Structures are given as C-alpha cells and as structure tokens.
C-alpha cells in the first residue's frame, strides 16, 4: 500500500526536523504509544495499542531512522507485529520550509500481512490516513507549544 501526503506544521524546518526524531515526541504523537525504548543508535522499540472499529490490540515494533539529511529529509523504517497481523514499511519524509512553518511531505510503502491484510482491505486506506492525521495533529500541537 502506497501512502503519501503532506502536512503543514507550525514550526521552522530545523525545529521540526529535530522534533520528528525525538523519541519522546514520537511516543506522544503515535496513537496508543507510551514510550520508545532506544535499542541502538537511531533505533527504537515500541509498543502500541491500536483500536479501530473495535478491533486491534497490542502491536510490538521497531522504528529506525535512516538516511538523515538534516534538516531536509530522513527515512523512517517501521516494523510491527500484533495478533491481527503485521506491518512493514518505509517512508521518506521531506521537510520544506514555508516561512514560519514547515511542510512535511511523506511518501512511503507499507506492506500489511496476516489476518488484517486478508480481510481488512477496505479498512486499510481510511484507517492509515486517520492514524497519520492523528499523528500530525498531535505533532502540530507540540510544535506550537513552547
């Protein structure tokens, strides 16, 4: 599944770049996630509780940040497994300065497997969009704060 889009967040490019790689910020923005545990340089483990349409549960996964080109772009590599299925994805985030604000452009490819891939096709597009939206809404809040 291809995912792409962009969000305008209320902070400068350098700051957005830094916040987007801050494990505490990421943990706050990801729905259902309490914290990220560092397991290696730029690599974190996380647990995520997902509930959509009454389905979901715990996902355990890893996030890795790669190909950093501060403050313009980096790559996010995600790997998660839960009872209802697993995801594996990779996305490129491009940060474009827009005056006081920054446009975060993302494009990625996510592989979904397990039960959810077989029976939840029509949910994937709308739910992944919602998760991304929630992420950036929270992220924008954090950017706007202090």
């Amino acid at each position: 599944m291809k995912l792409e889009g962009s969000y305008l967040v209320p902070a400068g490019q350098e700051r957005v770049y830094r916040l987007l790689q801050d494990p505490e910020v990421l943990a706050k923005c990801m729905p259902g996630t309490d914290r990220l545990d560092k397991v290696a340089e730029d690599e974190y483990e996380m647990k995520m509780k997902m509930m959509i349409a009454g389905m979901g549960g715990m996902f355990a996964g890893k996030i890795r940040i790669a190909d950093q080109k501060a403050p313009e772009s980096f790559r996010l590599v995600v790997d998660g497994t839960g009872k209802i299925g697993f995801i594996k994805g990779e996305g490129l985030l491009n940060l474009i300065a827009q005056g006081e604000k920054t446009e975060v452009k993302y494009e990625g490819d996510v592989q979904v497997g397990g039960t959810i891939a077989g029976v939840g096709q029509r949910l994937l597009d709308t739910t992944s969009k919602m998760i991304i939206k929630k992420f950036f809404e929270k992220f924008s809040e954090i950017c706007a704060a202090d």
Partner: protein
Amino acid sequence: MATTITKTETLVGKRIRRREDPRLITGTATYVDDIQMPGMHHACIVRSPHGAANIKSINTKPALDLPGVVAVFTGKDTEKIAPVPCGASLPGLRVPHHHVLAMDRVYFLGHPVAVVVATDRYIARDAADLVEVDYEPLQAVTDPEKAIAPGAPPVHPEWPDNTAFNYHQEGGDVDKAFAEADVIVKQRITSQRLIPAPMEGRGVVAEWLAGDRALTLHSSTQIPHLLRSLIAMMLGLEENRLRVVTPEVGGAFGCKLNVYAEEALMGFVAMKIGKPVKWIESRRENFTCTIHGRGHVDYYEVAAKRDGTITGIKLKLIQDLGAYHQLLTPAIPTLSVLMMPGLYACRNIRADIVGAFTNAVPTDAYRGAGRPEATHGIERMVDILAAELKMDPVDIRLKNFVGNDAFPYTTATGLTYDSGNYAAPFEKALGIVKYKELREEQKQARAAGRLFGIGLSTYGEICAMGPSPATAAGGWESATVKIEPSGKVTVMTGASPHGQGEETTFAQIAADELGVGIDDILVLHGDTAVVQYGIGTFGSRGTAIGGTAMYFAIQDLKKKIKKYGAMLLASEDVSFANGVCTDNQSGKSVSLKEIAAASYRAMSLPPGETPGLVATNFWEPPNFTFPFGAHIVITEVDRDTGAIELKRYVAVDDCGKIINPLIVDGQVHGGVVQGLGQALWEQAVYDDNGQLVTGEFMDYALPKASNIPWIESSHTETPSPVNPLGVKGVGEAGTIGCSPAVVNSVVDALSPLGVRHIDMPLTPEKIWNLVQAGGQA
C-alpha cells in the same frame, strides 16, 4: 402366477424433481461436520501468515500447556508421511516434495505448519494461537509472468527459474500457415485466479480402530476410492485397511477432486492419539488453502485468409501453478491446449506452456478446468479477427465450423470429436434473439450514443473423462446393480456425485431399463466399503461413464432375469419388458419381484446359472465426448459509471441425449452463474508479498442471485456415439460457454470507441477508464 404390470411410462427425458433435494432443503442431510463420535477430538491447523518465509523455530509448549490440548504435531513429527501426491505426469516435470506440514520453510500464505489436537474445537482454536513460530520472511513472487522473468525470487531455491515444466504441442504446419496468412491478429488474454468457494468447505473425520488396524476417513471429496488408495500410500497403510466415506458434499466444483495434506494428517492424528478426530475447514482456510482455479496468461496469434478462414493458431500459455502441484495441477493447462481450436476446422496449431511456480496456493481443476480458458481464448480471438476483417462474428463462425459431415473429426491437437452439428444450437440461439433485428436495434442505440453490445460464444468442450490411457488414474467407471429379494433395486455407482443429481438421473435410467418405479430404486455412492470401486465425478463424466457402466450391468442382469423368467414360465421364448417377463407363446408372465425372490430362494436354478440378481460392470469408454453450444449475451454499458447491464442471456446447449431436462437446465444455470462470476466479479488477488488480499467474502465477489439475469436455456440434442445412452455431459457447459459471450458483448458495446479486448473481471472502473480514454486505456 400373478401377472402384474409394474410400469409402462418411461422416465428418461422427463423433468423429474431431484430426489436428493428434500433432505438437502429440510436440513436432514449429513455432512462431515454433522458426524459425532464418542471421544472425538478436534484439530486446528497453524498456518503461515507469510507468502514465503524460513521457519527458524517452533515452540509448541504454550499450546501443549493449555488444558484440553492432547497433542501438537509439527513437520518433524510427520516427516515420514509420503508427500501430497501429484497425479499428473509431463516430460521433465519438476515436482517439489510436498510435505503435509512445512519443514523449514513455508511457500504460500496458509501453508500448514503444525496441527493442534484438543478435546474440543474451541480449545484447539485457542491453542493454535499459542504455537509460537519464528519466521524469517522472504521475498515472495505471486505473478506468474514476474516469477519466470530473470531475477525473480525463487519459490523453490532448487529451481531458481521458477519453471516447473515446459510443454510443447504442435499439429500441421504452423509456420507455413502464418507465412501465407492474409491477416494475423495477436492478443494477450488473461484468465484470472478464482476461488472455487463451495458452500461447504472441506472437512475430515478420521477414526482409527487399533484392534482391527482399520482407519476410516470421512471426507468431503469427489473421489473416495482414489483418496483411499493415495492416503493409504501416504500413511503406509494397506489399502484394504482404509475405508473412505463421503457423506453429503456441499459443493465442490473440482476443488474436492484432490488429495489434501489435511486428509492424510487427520489419519495420522487419529492413529497417533487413538481417538477419532475432526477437522473442519474455516472459510479463511478455504480461501487460502483449498486449490484455486484458472490463473492463465495467454498470448494468442491467429492467422487467417481474407475471407475469414482461420489457418493457424499459436498460443503461449503461462500457467500460475502456485507453490506445489496438487493432484492435477500441471495437467490442467494441457486440457486448454487440447481444446484450443474450439469448434473450428483449423489444421495448424502450436502451443507452448510454461508452468510457473508462485508463492500462492496451487491452482487445479475448477469447473471447466482448462476448457473455459481455451474457449475464452479462441472465442475472443475469433471476434478480434472478425473485427479486423470487418466481418460479422456470426459469419466468421459459420465459415470455420467443423462441418456436419466431418464426424468423427480428428483435430490438429489429436482429439477425435465424436459427433456435432455446430450450426444447430448457434442458429437456434440467433433465432431466439432475432439476431438481424438485434443488430438493427444496436445501430439505433449507437446512433443515440448508447453503448449496446451483442456477444456470441460458440463453445466446444471435452467431457466424459475419459479413456483410461488419457487420464492419470484410470478413466473408466463402475456400477453394481443389485435386485434385492423383494424386487427393490440398489445401484452402487463409483461416480461419487455431489450435487449433480445422479441419484435421480441414474434411477430414471434404471427404472426404464428394468421397468420398475423410480421409488423402487436406491442409488448408493461415496463409501469404499459399500461401492465396489470407482473413479469419481468430475470432468462431466458421471452419467456418460458411470451411467453407462450401470446400463451395462443392467443388461447383464436382464439376461439373467430372462433365464429365471424362462425357468419359472417353463418356456424357451420369453421377453422382458416393463418389469415383467412374458412367455411370448402363452402370454403368461412373471414379475421381476417374483423372479428376484426365486433367484435368492434358489429352489432351482436355470441351467448354468448362479443364485441372486447382482451384476457389476466396469466400463471403459472408447473416447471422450464433445458437447457444444452457443451462448448470446446482450449488454449495455453506462458511460458515466462503466456499469454493465446484462440485458439478456440466451444459452443453447447440446449435451447429447438429455436424461432429465430439469437437472440439465439446473446445471446450465449454475455453470453460467459461475461463468458470470469470472467474467464480471471474481478475482483472487495476491499482493507482491503473497498476501491474499481478497481473503473473504467481503472482498471476493461471488455472484448473487440478484445480479443474475433470467437465463433463457434451451437445447439441441446430438447423441454421442461413444456410449449407448447417447449422453455427453453438461456439468461444466455453462461455465465454458459463458465468459467469452459476456466479454465479447461488452467489447462489442465499446467497439465504437476502438476497444478490442478487456481482461476479466470486467469491473465498472476498468470499463469507465476505457470510456474516459476513448478506448485507449
């Protein structure tokens, strides 16, 4: 002596309601899942969530710790079970070792990895989630063309080209035909993967009686006797220690013409735990682990003269095999090649098949099995050729049909068509739709900007599979006919019907032959301890071969009946008709009932005769049969949405002599509906990682009654000379005739935009995109 006239009315040819139906519609039939046994355990299978992965480790302990779980078996435990068999043989065929449970690698989504056995079904299912399998996912490949391209990830590491076989067949002089052609048309045509989706999935109950060393396997199968032989071989059991019972089968369509890992596995489990065990396939498993149908990519080239005479056909066929060979997997595309000329008298053909391994569940026989693909190909190509030559698609067909005087007709692929009158059903169908007026109507519709299509398909099929030399496991069929001491008749047929209505049609034939009432006849099948032996029901063979075996068994009985009649009437000159034996001199008669009683009481015997009235016949057919027909579909396309309206569906089928028109129409209806499913809605879609993304009925669109137009079904009857009943077979006709008629109709509707071909399924979005692009998408 009493003289009772039992019966004079003949039943063959009458619309008689199916005797099977009352038990089916009142819920009193017994399916595998209805079987209960004391001490019965339940199995649940742990399956791969990946399309391709290495198994690094399996931890069964958490499952074993769950109260109620009695055993968990993995590939190591079942390694000694012989591989799941492939019955097809082709030169140079690569046959992967198909373990019943995966060893160190999984090859497709749903690949069985372990089996959990517990005291109830719910515990077994819970425990399956507790088996911890550590997978290392591998790159998968699910598209057959990508699979055979250089650099594709290997499905089986030992064969990096993912090629299971290459098969070549040639007849006549193809190169000359193409060199001398006035016109050559080419087209890539696909026939997508389909999920057979019977109402009842698979299911097995296995019971092992250790003291008797006897295993009984109840399985929802089309082939109880073959299953017995092959499962016995897999389990290392003597064949006569294994009994296979086939209870009611809730649909199969070819997907139960197979030997599955789970069938051997349940036998193994029952023998291990010493208790009966039941496994019932879930719908998810049915989608991911029971064979799929079709899966063709075909490259066609047709050479013709300017007058429309087809002079040569070339086909490159890429068959998506999936990860393994099931019973007939590699043989299915060879049937497409055999039928590639269709009804047309083309003498020069060349076909090359590439069998491609993919990380997907194997394909195998699904209603039509190779012939719908062939028919779709040639019927599309004939329309494309007609368009190229600006000929009417009716004229080009009539021009190329094998003529009525040519039968028996040997094709360029080496078959001998038994009998035919190809123009008869075609002209009848054209008459029903008033073809000339219809084209006029189309002209007016087009002038008004409407997209109105008329689609024709004239199909031929190869049925009554088949002479033994042409099949993998024998192509005969058997029947035992037993006239009980009371005069009741019991027929035991080796054709294991599962929805075809043979309990009715066989009884009709037997009733006419013996002159008894249909209610005096019981047709038994599907139990290897009851039925002498058999091959099964598939390839539209049940009545043509199984019915014929019964017919000949009855002929033997009739001779014996007459001898007993002669003895009882003290006459040398007797005849047997309408259930009574009559002395042609005195007119005295004796009933079948009286003869039967006398034969078992055996106070005296006719000279050289034995007691009892039982006869068995194993009938070997001298040839296949070749039914044919014509379907016409009228459609209209909505420009704004691409939606297709099926305005009219006319089917004229010739399946030889018709035993029961009601059942024949039912078979045609069911077949057409499955053909419409392929043409319009159904597609099994794997993503690049081997996930089946149409994994249940929310995304896999089976036809619904509300989507189906009235099917105007009628017939012509051209008897087959192959068997004395004159029957050919009709189980698959509807499916074979349907899809090209639908696609030809929609292509015809869009032809003003320059559209020449559309691959199935014809989704509205695909059609709308074509309309948007002015036919160029």
